[in-house]
């Protein structure tokens, strides 16, 4: 048996023994996600147990080095762990912006001290992070951001406003883009970390069209940030920000993979209805679903190729933009089809039968996928410029 086969056998046995049955149920919505953080209330004992066991094993961040809370797995081992988790439908033990976004940036740009401190907190689900990038006047044109940090010797005093800050009202710390030099656009931004409980930080939730309120306006009024809470060099935060965005885009593109079910059309058979041949009784919808299944399976292959190439350092560095574009557009299409396939049942917004309008709310939420983390238009602009090398793009 090769080492990897041996590893697979071990992982399979470990998961079998340690992943509670409740944690093998599909994630039905945000309520089933474990975000961690200072004020985290576990939804049930199983969620707590699953997190604790994975933390002990380093499996919340399997490919991070052991000193930072990971399991130190190789790319091949990480892939096997993910495959084995998918095989039994195991939920991620912990989801967080710390894992997906800040962690990779710290691994690349952080000091040893920062890595040991922040990465371990992230891996253990102790601190929940939010992302302070967008501002009212700076969305797609992020680099025009105005939030200003005034140099006061051993600290900055930060003033300004962020917007669309996901979960800001529930998060413990923020990674935040702050202008530290007003005379230099790109090289005048610093990447700062600070506690959301620092005096002067306030948040105001904004309601989404799905009826939930996961994002906020975030205000900074003379917020004191010690100098050691900077990641990377002074005024070179844009490099950190962009590196992090690559990881964010990769993460969001994962929505394109759906819930792991092999075929959307097959899932919708009962609600749509079938004819005597067992085919969907709406030939046009059937064709649309078949086309979707083709695209979804092809995208899945692309995602695997992308992952393998990235880990091997082979992919084009701008490729996450393509993945984000394709994955989010696919996910939006999936949910349009889920709505069409479930007809008037899926229109219900509050009823028990519809689980409080779960399908409609999820469908509406996916519309943000091609906006958050950079819009589809921005992704296409980046592909035109950085991959196709088009003039003027």
């Amino acid at each position, binding site marked *: 048996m090769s080492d990897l086969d041996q590893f697979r056998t071990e992982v399979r046995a470990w998961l079998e023994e340690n992943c509670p049955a409740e944690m093998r149920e599909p994630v039905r919505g945000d309520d089933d996600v474990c975000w961690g953080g200072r004020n985290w209330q576990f939804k049930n004992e199983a969620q707590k147990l699953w997190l604790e066991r994975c933390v002990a094993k380093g499996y919340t961040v399997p490919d991070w080095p052991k000193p930072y809370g990971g399991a130190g797995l190789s790319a091949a081992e990480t892939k096997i762990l993910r495959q084995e988790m998918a095989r039994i439908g195991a939920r991620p033990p912990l989801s967080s912006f710390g894992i997906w976004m800040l962690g990779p940036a710290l691994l690349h740009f952080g000091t040893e001290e920062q890595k040991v401190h922040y990465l371990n907190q992230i891996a253990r689900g102790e601190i929940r992070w939010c992302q302070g990038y*967008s501002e009212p*006047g*700076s*969305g*797609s*044109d992020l680099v*025009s951001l105005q939030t200003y940090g005034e140099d006061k010797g051993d600290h900055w005093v930060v003033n300004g406003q962020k*917007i*669309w800050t996901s979960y800001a009202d529930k998060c413990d710390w923020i990674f935040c883009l702050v202008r530290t030099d007003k005379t230099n656009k790109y090289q005048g931004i610093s990447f700062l970390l600070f506690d959301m409980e620092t005096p002067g930080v306030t948040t105001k939730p*904004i*309601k*989404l*069209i799905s*009826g939930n309120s996961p994002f906020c306006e975030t205000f900074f009024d003379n917020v004191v940030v010690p100098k050691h809470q900077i990641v990377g060099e002074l005024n070179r935060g844009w490099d950190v920000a962009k590196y992090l965005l690559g990881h964010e885009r990769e993460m969001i593109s994962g929505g394109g993979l759906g819930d792991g079910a092999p075929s959307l059309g097959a899932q919708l058979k009962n*609600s*749509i*209805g079938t004819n005597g041949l067992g085919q969907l*009784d*709406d*030939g*046009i*919808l059937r064709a*649309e679903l078949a086309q979707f299944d083709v695209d979804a399976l092809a995208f899945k292959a692309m995602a695997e190729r992308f992952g393998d190439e990235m880990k091997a350092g082979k992919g084009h560095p701008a490729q996450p933009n393509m993945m984000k574009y394709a994955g989010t557009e696919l996910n*939006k299409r999936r949910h349009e089809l889920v*709505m*069409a396939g*479930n*007809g*008037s*049942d*899926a*229109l*219900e*917004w*509050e*009823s028990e039968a519809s689980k409080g*309008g779960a399908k*409609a709310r999820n*469908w*509406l939420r996916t*519309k*943000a996928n*091609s*906006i*958050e983390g950079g*819009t*589809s*238009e921005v992704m*296409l*602009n980046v592909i035109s410029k950085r991959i196709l090398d088009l003039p003027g793009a």
Partner: protein
Amino acid sequence: MPMFLNEDQAMLRDSAREFLKTEAPVSHMRKLRDEGCKDGFRHALWKQFGEMGFTGILIGEDDGGLGLGHVEAGVVLEEIGRNLSPSPFLTTAVAGVSALNHGGQHLKDKFFPGILAGETVLALAIDEHAKHRPAQIATKAEKSGNGFRLSGKKQFVVQGASADALIVAARTAGAPGETDGITLFVVDKDAANLSIDNTRLVDSSMAAHVTLDGVEVDGDAVIGDVDNGWQVLSALLKAGRAGSAAELVGVGSGAMDMTVDYLKQRKQFGRLIGEFQALQHRAAHLYSEMEIARAAVLKAQQLLDEGQDSADIFVSVAKAKAGRSANLAVREGVQMHGGIGMTDEYDIGFYMKRDRALNEFMGDANFHAGRVAEIFGY
């Protein structure tokens, strides 16, 4: 008939536009939503519809109506769509009246005065599954004394809980899948063994699940002929489909106008986002699609008013085309607004929700494209 509105129709459009913009703009709908309004519309507004004469558009002059046609009904519906104004106009004054026009004088005498006054509300109990499949009707109507006894389940009965009466499609003969053997009935909301379960939809409109558990009606309740209800149902559906297509054009246009306005206001990269050709072209494409949809809808309405056989296929063309175009408008609308488009506080999301519900109503774009193939025989 020229393919544009004549002078009278244009006048009607102007007054409908002014009326709905003033009395029932999007903020009106938002208010009802925030209040959790159980009817999903204001009865006072419905009365105003009566005062404006809108509710009598499809009622003949002999019966006290205006004796106008589907073009005129559509003119009002497009403005309803643009303002997302909640009302029973489509179900009652368009689809309901079109069915009752096939019924006996006693039914017209019973319902038309209340509809003309903007008081009576009718709801349509047709669908029995998540998808619109009218030929599959299984609700049974068995002979009982000099009337019938109805049993079955209906869903997506828009405003079912606030209606004074339901128009119920049931089977007096034949098997699901057959168009023969269907009969249409008017069932009073207070009938025994009728239960109406009110539920809110994504667009904040109200619809009901209706259970008929041996509801007794007398022979007078039949609209048209027993076993031959497919004809009446077809009239109802054509009116409702052409009407919802017109409303979809309004929804799409409203979303498009908001979006084009936004492209002229929002700045990024030191420019108005409307200066980016990537967005210009999509807005221009959307404009083309909306114009074509509006033409398809007008064609269907004119053919219906002329009583042409080809109205059948064109109603499906209209519903499918308007459905696809409005859906494009709301998707582009949210996307081109960026983050603000995802917020409840901003109106564009309401257009997306209304589009979803209207697309589903009386058959979505796929269903109607399928009908076009069927009618062409392939």
